[in-house]
């Protein structure tokens, strides 16, 4: 027998690319998680440490990193939205699963509302600081 051959279009095929991008994105989670720990550490270490941490966030590289993470997270969310409906049971007790468009629409709705709220809140905070 000849040994199995990996899927022919792996990893260059368009669908595999999107899947791999999704998977590789977890690499972004590591520095972000580390950063979160640093933030908590700084908070616990007093005002000076916290201000220093905040100042560090203004570095262009950090901003770029966050921008990339933001785009990636958005993309992961959208991929998840597309694949979400079928992860749900056909039935919950007496209720049938709502149609896919409703589930996906709902997810987009919540996403849009949350983004808007966060945006407004951030704008307010930033405005307040200024």
């Amino acid at each position, binding site marked *: 027998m000849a040994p199995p051959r990996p899927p022919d279009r792996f990893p260059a095929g368009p669908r595999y690319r999107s899947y791999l991008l999704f998977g590789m994105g977890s690499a972004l989670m590591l520095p972000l998680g580390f950063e979160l720990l640093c933030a908590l550490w700084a908070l616990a270490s007093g005002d000076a440490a916290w201000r220093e941490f905040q100042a560090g966030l203004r570095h262009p590289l950090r901003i770029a990193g966050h921008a990339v993470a933001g785009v990636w997270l958005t993309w992961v969310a959208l991929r998840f939205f597309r*694949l979400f409906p079928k992860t749900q049971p056909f039935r919950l007790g007496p209720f049938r699963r709502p149609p896919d468009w409703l589930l996906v629409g709902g997810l987009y709705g919540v996403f849009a509302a949350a983004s808007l709220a966060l945006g407004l809140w951030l704008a307010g905070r930033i405005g307040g600081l200024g």
Partner: protein
Amino acid sequence: MAEHTKIIAVTRFDPERDDAPRSQEYEVPVQEDWKVLEALNYIKDHLDPTLSHRWSCRMAVCGSCGMNVNGEPKLTCREPLSNYGERVEVAPLANFPVVRDLVVELEGFLEKLGALKPWIMLAKQRAPEEGATRQSPAELADFKQFSMCINCMLCYAACPVVANEPDFLGPAALATAHRYNLDSRDEGAAQRAEIMRGEGGVFSCSYANECAEVCPKNVDPAGAIQQAKLANVLSWARSFVVRRRAAS
């Protein structure tokens, strides 16, 4: 019917002669409405009787003729040749050992399927005299989609997890197990749980969704596996709560 020729590049491998699979090209006069399988059968009957491939029903239900066509797993009896250009590559399904030419080894799948106990399990077997069980159309709809799998193995050929983790039970087998778990007539979910949530079970799936993309019968094994993940987490959580309550 208009005829023209296409080059069909077929992966050949005879373990008695070849060290590794190789490609062989055939010039086939094809008809407009032919499926890929008809070109292979033409080769077998008219050009090269040494070509080995599996096929039978030629109506997309027996599941024998799955192959990789231009790199994508396809049921060759329902895949129109007209979807492809002048050169079409036909290879054995990926992710399976190759027995010969386009024939792959399926023993592993059958072992995995059997291990998942794909049959109705009851505490007390029903006797025929009891008559047919009642099952509402809604209860039937709970699992019907996942009972449509023809075991054509396209999903295994597409799955990147199968490629990296040979012990992964895989899309078709897990979907079938989940189908029995969802059947209102079955009480065997607990007995399937250990293997379903164990090593190589549903949690090995990283939801690439490739199985659903290539499934020719819209079974959507990816959906079944994610549902099974959720069901397993919920039942685990429930058992945890029940235990805590019982303890206090």
